[in-house]
């Protein structure tokens, strides 16, 4: 089987904090792969290194045969991503956000408009296509981001906690679409989630990361067997412990408040 993502001895240090510590794993082409871990375990940092946003301190990454550090543009063409944090332009309409994305990814005009129509209908936002994103609720923004990430039909799609804040209807709808895409186009799906039941149901293979290290990987059944538990949630807790992780408030939180004051 062709390995579309290969990660070897990947390490990322921020000053003296090691966010990702000597991580190695691989994802097969056409696989649905779940990357699980408690808050602050290093999931998002790993995804950022895979998607050219961060340079690794040490180690190598290959995406579809290309190195994100040396061939960022080639790598960027192979994947789509739905970020954990919002990444839409609030001052643009839903349609404009889609259009912007499609143009940046060289999707030809006619195909782009077809897909925008199809995807916006799919996430139930076609009627609101002319509304500014800042008028949208959290769930609507999330749906729009997912639609946008799928617009250029990438070979690999990264989804960083895509279903956070989505109702079960939208969640099922979204996974159904992704599975279709996975089956019909062989799209590799790489996702993180805190819903263990979701990972159990969707993922063909799972890796669990904690404190910057991969502590277990395999199919859901293998993980359960390894920990002698009956559900993935129990296996996860057995592997990562029951302590609640703290995450420091980021400057983004301060800034959000500030902008609200700033703009009327």
């Amino acid at each position, binding site marked *: 089987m062709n390995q579309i993502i290969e990660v070897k001895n990947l390490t990322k240090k921020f000053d003296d904090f090691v966010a990702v510590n000597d991580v190695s794993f691989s994802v097969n082409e056409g696989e649905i792969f779940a990357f699980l871990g408690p808050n602050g375990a290093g999931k998002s940092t790993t995804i950022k290194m895979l998607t050219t*946003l961060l340079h690794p301190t040490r180690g190598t990454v290959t995406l579809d045969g290309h190195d994100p550090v040396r061939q960022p543009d080639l790598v960027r063409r192979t994947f789509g991503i739905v970020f954990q944090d919002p*990444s839409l332009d609030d001052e643009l309409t839903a349609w404009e956000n889609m259009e912007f994305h499609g143009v*940046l990814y060289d999707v030809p005009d006619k195909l782009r408009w077809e897909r925008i129509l199809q995807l916006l209908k799919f996430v139930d936002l076609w009627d609101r296509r002319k509304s500014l994103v800042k008028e949208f609720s959290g769930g609507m923004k999330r749906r729009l981001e997912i639609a946008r990430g799928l617009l250029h039909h990438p070979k690999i799609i990264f989804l960083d906690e895509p279903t956070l804040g989505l109702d079960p209807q939208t969640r099922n709808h979204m996974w159904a679409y992704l599975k279709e895409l996975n089956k019909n186009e062989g799209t590799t799906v790489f996702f993180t989630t805190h819903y263990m039941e979701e990972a159990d149901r969707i993922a063909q293979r799972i890796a669990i990361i904690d404190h910057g290290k991969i502590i277990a990987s395999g199919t859901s059944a293998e993980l359960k067997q390894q920990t002698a538990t009956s559900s993935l949630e129990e296996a996860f807790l057995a592997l990562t412990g029951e302590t609640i992780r703290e995450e420091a408030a980021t400057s983004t939180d301060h800034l959000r408040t500030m902008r609200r004051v700033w703009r009327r």
Partner: protein
Amino acid sequence: MKKIYILWLRQIKRYLRSKSRIVGSLAQPLLFLLALGYGLGGVFQQAGQGSYINFLTPGIIGMSIIFTAIFTGIEIIWDRQFGFLKEMMVAPMSRLNIMIGRTLGGATVATIQGLIVLAISLLVGFRPDHWSGLPLLVLFMFLVALLFTALGTMIASLLNDMQGFQLIMNFLVMPLFFLSGALFPLDNLPRALAIVTRLDPLSYGIDAFRILLISAGHYGLGADLLVLSTVTVGFLWLGSYFFKKIQI
């Protein structure tokens, strides 16, 4: 090309949609024109320098351009904090092109803002010598706008959040404006001030505006063009250098 265009278009759309920002950023130039233009007008006239409103208007156009341009450049920090920068950074497009698209958009916005101030100044009593310099004036305005948008982008690439914004306003933008000859003639200045105004790129922009609007300049149009284009190229280069280094 199309990617640069859509980045440019985004800046324009954002500008046109933030009505409160447009109005807000016009209040300050208007205040300057009215309060200083009429407040100091008498003294200026008695000193034999002619109409202060006429002298001041090119300076205030320069002011609105530098404020808007640096601000749109700095907006990258917002894009970064609110995630949209990530969307641009993972797209298959060179960092240089992202920078070019954004900078052209920001510069266009700043130029429009300058033109609006020019229109307002006419209502307040500004009378240009002639209109024949208008096309060239727009060109110079765009050049000044480009220069300071690139500077704003450069600064924004080095900052992580808006905390440093006040610092930049007070220690960079304000001095650039006040030491540019926007408010006073550049002739017969004390030596120290003369040197400082010569180092301020905005001086050359406002000088060019004055030549083209009221036929009164200090450095000459050729010198202005040379200095402005050199500094602009320099800032664009530096801006894209720092922009490329952004990691999220």
